[in-house]
């Protein structure tokens, strides 16, 4: 059975946890900035270099406009889908993350393989009190994104504790 806490984060049956709704706000801001930069770049290129395209100029305008409209639709719906699909679970032996907008990914990282845990925050996430936990293994990095900073610190502490216990047991 699902339950929603006062912080907007929900825990689901099976031990999976969901993100705080603030993750959508962070994504909207990030996507919005990227989209604005893209629009400005497109308009600048077409204004300054559009004539060089000759007869293909109109086709380029049309193609650019279609791509921008499709991207706008993506920007509008993607954060909601991302939020609704994101699940993560940390047990004593593994980190399990499920997420995806178009392509769905299910990541499994055994705690045994974790080398390093890091909490990072970009400027937008910092403003919203969110952070991400980067879990480094010898084979690459898995990330749990858009966690509230307290939760991110707790996750990192827990992972570090689990890795430490594992190493002590090994000695």
């Amino acid at each position: 059975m699902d339950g929603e806490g006062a912080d907007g984060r929900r825990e689901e049956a099976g031990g999976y946890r969901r993100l705080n709704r603030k993750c959508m706000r962070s994504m909207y801001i990030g996507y919005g900035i990227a989209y604005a930069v893209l629009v400005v770049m497109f308009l600048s290129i077409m204004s300054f270099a559009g004539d060089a395209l000759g007869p293909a100029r109109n086709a380029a305008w049309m193609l650019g406009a279609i791509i921008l409209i499709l991207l706008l639709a993506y920007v509008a719906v993607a954060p909601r889908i991302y939020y609704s699909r994101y699940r993560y679970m940390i047990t004593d032996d593994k980190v399990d993350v499920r997420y995806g907008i178009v392509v769905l990914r299910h990541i499994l990282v055994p705690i045994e393989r974790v080398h390093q845990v890091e909490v990072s925050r970009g400027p937008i996430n910092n403003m919203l009190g969110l952070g991400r936990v980067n879990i480094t293994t010898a084979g690459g990095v898995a990330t749990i994104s858009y966690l509230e900073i307290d939760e991110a610190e707790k996750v990192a502490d827990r992972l570090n504790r689990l890795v430490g216990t594992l190493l002590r047991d090994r000695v």
Partner: protein
Amino acid sequence: MNLSGEALRCHPSIILENSIQILVPIVVILFVARRFDISVIAALISAALVLAVLFNYRQWKMTVIRFGETDVVIERSTLFKLKKTLPYSKIAAVNVNRGIVNRLFGTSRLMININSGHNAMAPEAALTFKRDMADRIRTELSQRLYQHELPVEESGETLVSFSPADVVLHSLFAVPTLQNLLGALFLVNSVYELYLSVATDAAAGGSALISLGMFFLVQVVPSVMQLFRYYNFKVYRKGDVIYLQHGLVRTYRTSFPISKVNAVRVKSTLASRLLHRSCIEAEVVGIATNDGNGNTRPVICLLKDDATIQRLLGELVPEFVYERWPSKQPSGARSVLRVRTIIASLALVAVMAYPSLIIYGDEAPRAGMMALSPFVLPALTALAVLAFVGAARASYRIRELDIGEELFTFVNGILDRETVIMSYDKVQMVWVVRGPIARRFDVASATVYMLSSTGTKNVSSGLFPESELKRIGDIVMERIASGKYDPRRSGA
């Protein structure tokens, strides 16, 4: 000799070796620039040589190496100070190779690689010593690393003999198929350009020479590099250590414990398959090679017939041999590949339609071969669509998955095929990925992340039922929970 912590210096020949390395690009730049006459160039080169020798002499003089009880420390006290400590417990391999300068001075280059993904393409330390001294240091270090001594002159019997013809075949046909096709394309173009210049009685155009140069760069140089590198190839195993020896001008002696091997790849290019041959590479942590073909994994067997390859797998890396019951991709995968092919083809046709129409509508007079130009783009587009269809059919037919108890295998590759046999105990992460089309047909693909010879490496599967792919992660977890995974034994 004991590794007793006494301060050592490299052999002074590295002053010359390093000075030449600095000097060569300077000489090339001076000649290419053609800004000065020959006497000025000679003076500049002499000055550069003197400066390079002085610089390298000081580097040599101020650099000391200490092989201590627990680590090797390299200390340089020049303007750019350095103190590098390599703990023996982190060293993955200690290897020796000898180039022309080494042979002239009777020295060897000792290469120390550590278990690091960072900076994996270059050894953490490359130290030049007198040959006998380098061999003794290597022996003592190997004793610490592998718990048994290496003979100073390794003289193991190779498990398979490789004739010069085998080396030549490997050099020619182990080159990736696309690279071969590109090389052939450049060669054909240069021949065609030369033919045109002869037929029209004009001087050979620059484009023929450029094409010929590209052919040499893409096709001939990599093959010659492989020929030089793998000449006199020997491979054998003593206890848990695999030994490789090869090289014509520069000789390579490489050894690594089996526990450092994360995966074994049996590879065949299109041309080598026609000859019923394949080769074996090992994904060894801490050892990256560069054979000039973009391949960074140590080759442990050159192209050989399939029966020999199977025998060698059993004798050299039995830890990576198991009875396989491979699964083919389900019919859902065929549907996914079909839909992807249709989408890719439609996208290509849509993109090519506009330029094709423009060229077709251009009413400028065309003569000879140029009369065919309106049909070139549509013909190329049709060929590309056919290639998409062929690739999808081959991809469905070829890709396999095999989930065993200790090992699992992915078979991939349309032109150049590879069978990757991996150990669950070396898997760092598993991603199961389902795109929108794959979800519709109930299949997924898995990407397995491992530590490789050049940092991290991922290997992706074909399209299989999600439940089957999730078993890989489940088995990894089961092995850890049940204690079957032993981090010491697996070299973690």
